[in-house]
């Protein structure tokens, strides 16, 4: 039996084949799978596709040296963190001619100001999804989530940066603040809101809102689009105080041994047809000009999925808080435990 184990070990360690193998690490259910086969057929490069569930899990794995991935799909603040810690390789944009299809408004973003490390993949906003049969007034401010009228009909996100972030925005502060007084004010507001909240949810917000179990929920725009299709009573709004603008982008870790192939993959993902296939399957908003043109006009004009620049003028992208995140952790724990 030991011989069996050793044999297995030897075989698995023997990765030195002639064919190049590209390792991709992405969120679960975040790509049109046929795209992978298309890439393999076109370039003759085998793709090992793994999935992760949170930025933090992915970060731990890459940081400790496990995985040997060539392409990653982190979110904005994680990209910033990885750049600061030297974990990412600079992408040679010359090898990615399809980058020309990325709209101007998605270039030079806060987490990668010189466009050296990342190529945007999907984006969206955070906003309020509300059931128009239960909420008769216009939804323009985060303050509606603190309205006594909707006691036990409000769903908040069980995610510390999102929930603390929108509270900070409601109070007029930045979502990335390190000011202790501002954070204390946010904590007080969240504790004040607690009796009105039906539940702090994750992805089950979709089931609940479609079933009409709550009047208001904080959701991501991509999910909001789906929910509105399933239940026509639902509407989405990004409050005036501003909200969170999020991006998931493709990056190459510094430890990658197949940078050229990784750039080939990223370029392939920016091909108009491929980009359209992905956005069509996932349903989230694409930063790709040509893919946007191929969308169903109803979706392309949907302000939920594709808000105007004016609508998101007050939106912020999450920044990497590094050590200060512990403070946000502490506050969220205190809010949940209250």
């Amino acid at each position: 039996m030991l011989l069996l184990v050793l044999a297995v070990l030897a075989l698995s360690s023997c990765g030195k084949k002639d064919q190049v193998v590209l390792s991709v690490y992405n969120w679960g259910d975040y790509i049109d799978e046929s795209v992978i086969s298309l890439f393999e057929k076109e370039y003759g490069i085998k793709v090992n596709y793994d999935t992760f569930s949170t930025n933090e899990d992915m970060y731990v794995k890459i940081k400790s040296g496990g995985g040997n991935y060539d392409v990653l799909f982190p979110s904005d603040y994680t990209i910033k963190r990885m750049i600061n810690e030297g974990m990412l390789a600079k992408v040679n944009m010359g090898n990615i001619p399809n980058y020309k299809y990325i709209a101007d408004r998605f270039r030079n973003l806060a987490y990668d100001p010189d466009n050296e490390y990342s190529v945007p993949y999907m984006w969206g906003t955070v906003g309020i999804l509300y059931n128009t049969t239960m909420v008769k007034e216009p939804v323009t401010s985060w303050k509606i989530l603190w309205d006594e009228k909707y006691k036990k009909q409000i769903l908040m996100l069980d995610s510390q940066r999102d929930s603390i972030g929108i509270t900070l925005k409601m109070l007029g502060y930045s979502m990335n603040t390190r000011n202790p007084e501002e954070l204390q004010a946010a904590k007080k507001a969240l504790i004040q809101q607690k009796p009105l909240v039906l539940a702090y949810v994750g992805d089950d917000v979709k089931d609940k809102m479609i079933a009409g179990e709550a009047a208001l929920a904080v959701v991501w725009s991509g999910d909001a689009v789906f929910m509105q299709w399933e239940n026509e009573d639902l509407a989405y709004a990004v409050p005036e105080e501003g909200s969170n603008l999020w991006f998931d982008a493709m990056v190459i870790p510094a430890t990658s041994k197949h940078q050229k192939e990784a750039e080939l993959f990223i370029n392939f993902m920016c091909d108009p047809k491929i980009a359209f296939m992905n956005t069509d399957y996932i349903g989230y908003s694409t930063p790709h000009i040509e893919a946007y043109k191929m969308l169903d006009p109803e979706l392309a004009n949907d302000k939920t999925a594709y808000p105007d620049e004016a609508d998101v003028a007050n939106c912020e992208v999450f920044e990497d808080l590094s050590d200060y995140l512990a403070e946000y952790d502490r506050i969220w724990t205190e809010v949940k435990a209250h």
Partner: protein
Amino acid sequence: MVKPRLKWVYACLIYLFLYAPIIILIIYSFNDSRYRGSWNGFTLKWYQQLFQDRQIMSALYYTLVVAVLSSIIATVLGTAGAIGIHNMKKIKKTMAMNLTYLPVVNPDIVTGLALMILFIFAHVQLGFGSLLLAHITFNTPYVILSVLPKLKQLDKNLYEAALDLGATPFHAFQRVILPEIMPRIITGLLLAFTLSVDDFVISFFTTGSGVSTLSITIYSMARRGINPKINALSTLLFLTVLLLLIIVNKRMSSQSPQVRKNLR
């Protein structure tokens, strides 16, 4: 004296409580909508999509292969280990038992991270090999803990009697001890198999190179919502296990009472 009818009702409630989530899961695998919130009609499309989904099929394959291999290897190692520990002197025995208990009481995340760091340190590429080794590692203590108590119950003299009658030690082991502890070995095997299929944290940190298990694939869907393809897969797995259990039970009840007694 509790009325039989009341006992029956109570039992039904318990089983309902246990199985209600699974039944709902199965019902929604036929729902023509991605979300639980609305019932849009009966469909088999999730089952169709399931078999075309390369990721899920690959994860299913690896989950089963790793579970079968690791449980068999862990059972062999664990049984050998249990016999070894059983024959140790007092102090060594206590030390060995403490070492055996450590992986059991350790939180999964500690074991997972520790194994990952060990593999990286030893320059072992994370992939199928490392995943298999990790599963064998956390399965073996459970097998030891399953087999050891039965060994204590054995009559020591039987083994010595077999040796006196001219059997070689291995022959004596094979004919005398092994049949007695076989039920516990099977229990250990099934326990190891279940733990292996169920594991997420340790698998997540010790795998790579495109090798993924079902639990990792499903957990990675958390952000986007669980795809009903998983409902379809769960239904099929549930029915398979149910069928196997029915078959095993039928075979057992058709055998003689003496055989059944030995199997207990």
